[in-house]
């Protein structure tokens, strides 16, 4: 994905966070959000391998072999951080103590189902902590490109890949749109600057509910 698209999505994700929120960012695109936290908003990042208060990458040469995030990358921790074991980490996650989790997706559908861990016949990485995160976080945000590399919509009427969790997604943020998952279906809330309503509808297999007011982001 182009750098400016990543930044745009990252910035839009970051707007979802309130001061004092505890947030878990999945690897890849979701981590981009950390670079766009608005001034005056303090967000505390959890790393599910056992850390609250994950900080930025250390300067080169100052890596600590015992300080990694859930993606395996070297990190630091901020003042007020705490370490704990993996069972406690997932008690935090599954017990709805995390305010928001942001994950990538292969597919999302209009029932809020998420598929992000398995393409049958391809490499099977395993679900890691994703199923627990999606099941337990107070708010589940999916961040992804709107379409796959063949131009096909990743927002479907019904997921075709094995699910990560059923009916748990709250918000979808892509390079084209911001879509809220409600009981009645998918509400189109925002469109990326420069795109038309028609562009988004055409790029989306799922039915979209179009409210009177759709903002630009």
């Amino acid at each position, binding site marked *: 994905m182009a750098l400016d698209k990543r930044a745009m999505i990252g910035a839009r994700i970051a707007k979802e966070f309130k001061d004092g929120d505890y947030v878990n960012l999945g690897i890849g695109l979701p981590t981009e959000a950390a670079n766009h936290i608005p001034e005056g908003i303090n967000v505390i990042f959890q*790393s*599910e*391998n*056992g*850390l609250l208060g994950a900080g930025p990458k250390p300067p080169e040469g100052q890596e*600590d*072999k*015992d*300080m*990694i*995030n*859930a993606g*395996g990358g070297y990190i630091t*921790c901020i003042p007020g951080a705490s*370490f*704990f*074991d*993996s*069972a406690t*980490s*997932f*008690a935090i*996650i*599954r017990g709805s103590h995390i305010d928001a989790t942001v994950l990538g997706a292969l597919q999302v559908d209009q029932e809020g*189902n998420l598929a992000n861990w398995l393409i049958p016949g391809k*490499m*099977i*990485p*395993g*679900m*890691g*902590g*994703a*199923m*627990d995160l999606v*099941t*337990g976080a107070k708010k589940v945000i999916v961040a992804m490109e709107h379409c796959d590399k063949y131009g096909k919509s990743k927002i479907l009427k019904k997921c075709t890949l*094995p*699910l*990560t*969790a*059923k*009916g748990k997604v709250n918000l979808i943020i892509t390079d084209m749109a911001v879509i809220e998952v409600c009981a009645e279906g998918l509400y189109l809330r925002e469109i990326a600057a420069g795109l038309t309503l028609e562009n988004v509808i055409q790029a989306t297999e799922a039915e979209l509910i179009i409210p009177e007011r759709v903002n630009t982001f």
Partner: protein
Amino acid sequence: MVQIISPAEAAAMIKPGNRLAIGGFLAVGAPETIIDAMVENGNKDLHIIVIASDWEDRGVGKLVVNKMVKSAQVSHMGTNKAIQAQMNAGEIDIELVPQGTLMERVRAFGAGLGGILTPTGLGTIVAEGKQIITLEGKDYLLETAIPSDFALIKAHKADKLGNLTYRKTARNSNPIMAMAGKITIAEVDEIVEIGELDPEEVITPGIFVNYLILAKEN
């Protein structure tokens, strides 16, 4: 009380068919010294219970690459092509377990529980073949305790009663795996005298630990 043994002695205790709960997360906090001794010893037909299959040259990945593992309960294998290849070739049986569920199932065994009820995995292939229990209108999967013969863990400091401390994110699954071994072997950076650890800083009480191994310098 604990006994201090050599890595080779640890490896020699482990027999074909044994179930091993091994600490670490992407090889950080993995008991590398014990793993290396097992590779050297040529242990075979192991069942491993791990968060991740780590890297081909680090952590439990080395057991996989050397074809010492016949089956695994694991939540993440994305960093190790060898385990994927062996799985596709039918050489290794894999049960994929969501990471939080894995930790609770291991903890349950250590804590004398038969299992736990979790919402994680409902409506996914993880639920296949499992009992669903409905409590006040909410569904849960019944996930059973995962037994293990040995826990192989990495800690930072140990005293001679086996009380353990950890270091930063190298703590991860280690305190949970430590609870669950019928025999628990802890590899540590440093062994101190009884009384040198503050009772408040002990994370794993020595009652869970049977043997200590001093980690190789790395």
